[in-house]
């Protein structure tokens, strides 16, 4: 990393994580978990949150050994140059495919929900242009933007609290009647995909000011917040829809707002969506930034800004060229979940074990 650069405060980092983790997939999450564990979906989400806290601990244990290195710099040290380079490229692919997937999901959402006649290319362009504009800047400037738009999270929260006027708490009962423990576990893997974003610690650790415990705390706090936020939205969806109904509604969080109309305002789901688009875009920006820094690092460029148009271009091409059906997206998402699981859980764990065995640590004079 470049010395003398302004660093993120832990509080700013919390907002980066929150905005990266909260994204497009929460809208569908209650349905996906309910298909497996029915009324116990909220437990599955808590379990997922708990496992992610463990994973964060593993990532933190790895990165704290190299306080001034990003993951891209850690890998060659731990694994040697050739293997490190290969993994480096795979991680660029991972962040880039996450950004692309967010674009595709965003466009699919917009297409089915509001703009059914607008060409997908235009919708892709919308999110990518905004992402491009913000990602050109440093992570500190991005974090300020994230902090600012986090205020908007209050609106969806308020709208979903209004839903509580028309719910039936009995849909949550009997607790534990949704399925066995293995089912709960399968359900929680679905939630994992919606909570991606905490792995940014791998890349951003050296950019955060403060000691390593402050960084761990910031990560745990934001993941805790996201887990509770998701749990809250899931509980609301569960008590609004009957158990038979929620499994046939692909985006319960949006759908439940469709019925509500106020004297001045109709179609509250559209209001919700207008604001939620920002949360989706911020997730996209983070991954665009991460893939650009990875690429800059690979090519030994000092600034990532010049890489952003390139990565954004790849996103635009990949998301626009293929005519994707909902089945394709499902398949892609499924494949991606395994991919992500490997990249954020298994690889960091292996790296940590290797680093411990080979006693690799950042040398004091680096």
């Amino acid at each position, binding site marked *: 990393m470049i010395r003398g650069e302004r660093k993120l405060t832990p509080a700013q980092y919390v907002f980066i994580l929150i905005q990266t983790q909260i994204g497009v997939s929460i809208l569908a999450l209650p349905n996906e978990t309910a298909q497996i564990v029915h009324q116990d979906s909220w437990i599955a989400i808590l379990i997922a949150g708990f496992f992610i806290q463990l994973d964060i601990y593993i990532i933190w244990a790895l990165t704290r050994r190299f306080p001034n290195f990003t993951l891209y710099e850690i890998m060659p040290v731990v694994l040697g140059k050739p293997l490190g380079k290969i993994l480096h490229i795979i991680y660029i692919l991972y962040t880039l495919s996450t950004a692309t997937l967010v674009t595709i999901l965003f466009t699919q959402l917009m297409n089915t929900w509001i*703009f059914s006649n*607008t060409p997908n290319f235009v919708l892709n362009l919308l999110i990518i242009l905004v992402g491009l504009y913000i990602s050109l800047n440093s992570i500190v400037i991005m974090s300020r933007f994230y902090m600012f738009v986090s205020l908007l999270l209050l609106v969806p929260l308020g709208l979903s609290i209004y839903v509580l006027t028309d719910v*039936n708490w*009995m*849909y949550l009962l*009997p607790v534990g009647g949704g399925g066995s423990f293995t089912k709960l576990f399968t359900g929680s893997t679905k939630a994992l995909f919606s909570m991606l974003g905490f792995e940014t610690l791998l890349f951003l650790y050296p950019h955060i000011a403060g000691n390593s415990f402050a960084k761990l705390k910031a990560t745990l706090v934001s993941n805790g917040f996201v887990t509770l936020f998701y749990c809250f939205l899931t509980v609301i969806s569960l008590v609004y829809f009957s158990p*038979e*109904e929620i499994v046939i509604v692909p985006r319960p969080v949006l759908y439940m707002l469709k019925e*509500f109309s106020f004297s001045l305002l109709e179609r509250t789901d559209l209001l919700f969506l207008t604001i939620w688009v920002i949360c989706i875009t911020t997730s996209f920006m983070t991954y665009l930034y991460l893939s650009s820094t990875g690429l800059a690092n690979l090519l030994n460029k000092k600034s990532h800004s010049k890489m952003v148009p390139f990565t954004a271009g790849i996103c635009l091409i990949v998301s626009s060229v293929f005519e994707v059906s909902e089945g394709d997206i499902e398949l892609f998402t499924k494949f991606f979940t395994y991919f992500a699981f490997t990249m954020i859980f298994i690889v960091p764990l292996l790296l940590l074990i290797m680093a411990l065995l080979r006693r690799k640590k950042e040398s004091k004079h680096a």
Partner: protein
Amino acid sequence: MKKPLALILALSLFVTTGCWDQVMLKDENLALAVGFDLTNKKELNTTIAIPYMKSGGGGQSPSIVTTVQILSMKTRTPRQARVKINNEIAESINATKMLSLGLGEKLAKTHIFPYLDLFYRDPRGSLNAYLYVAKGHAFDLLKVKNPSNPRIGIYLSKMLKSTNEATVTQKADIQSICADMMDPGADFELPYIEINKKDKVLSLKGVALFHGDTYTGAYLNTEQSTMLLLMKGLKEITARQTIQIADHNKMNVKNYVNIDVKNTHAHLKLKMDKNHRAKVNLLVNLGIKVEEYPHDQLFSDKQKNALNKKISKQLTLQSRQIIKILQKENCDAFAIGRRINAFHHADWIKMNKKHYFRDLTFNVTIKTKLLQQGVTY
């Protein structure tokens, strides 16, 4: 910011206006009231009421005249009606602002969920449209021309709103019934509307009782439906009842009392006995206000207590009658099944989902408390 980038961003605004999906009101005809019927040949007959606004002329202050065109046609599915009607009218039809959806009696007696699918599936579907069952055909209902309310769509939705505020019907829209319709442990009621041919008006007959997504053919009259809502612990703005308290007065008017329920508290207790049979005890506490008491003697506490007792007794009898009807039709309006599932899950799995409500024992008691009696004794 660099100039070229600023230019690109400014230019990109042109593609963000979303002109692909714009909907111009001048090109659309809003269908405010829709009705579905089954013909004798079991074909679907869709009826749509489209209001037209015309400037009626008149020089300096032109009046706006509204006429309603009723279009009706036989189609295979409700969605096909849109295509067919589009071929008949100048503009294109738009049902996203639909205010009410009527279901003909015959159609309601089959399964209604398949006919509602399009509203659930369409992202712009009007989920908060009032649903009701029409006695006879919804088609005839929509043709009624009420002089004070020429626009049938507005007339129907206002009427259903006011009956909801008077605690006669529960607000039943396409989305709100969905949970109960799909849940085997709960059923729902829909407003039941008929035509008063003499006065050429619509009239609410009561609520039609459903089991699953099928109209059972039985209904509760308006007094019973108010009582049913009170038994569920629901009260909107007013809940008025006329109750017979005697039959010996020569002047018939003196045999009755008119009350308005101020508050209602329903205490429902569910027990399972040793044979895994459900037993329900429902105690409803009503706080009432006497609005009309032609007999006109409410001075002492003794008189008040006597009246209170009579009202309680009458209402208890009436509510037992309601439970009897509900059980006969297997309409679980209290969502007892959902309760059994929640608290006695193992028993629920073994229960017959079709007629569990008929099999259970349901005791109901109404207790009233006289809170107000107006400004005279």
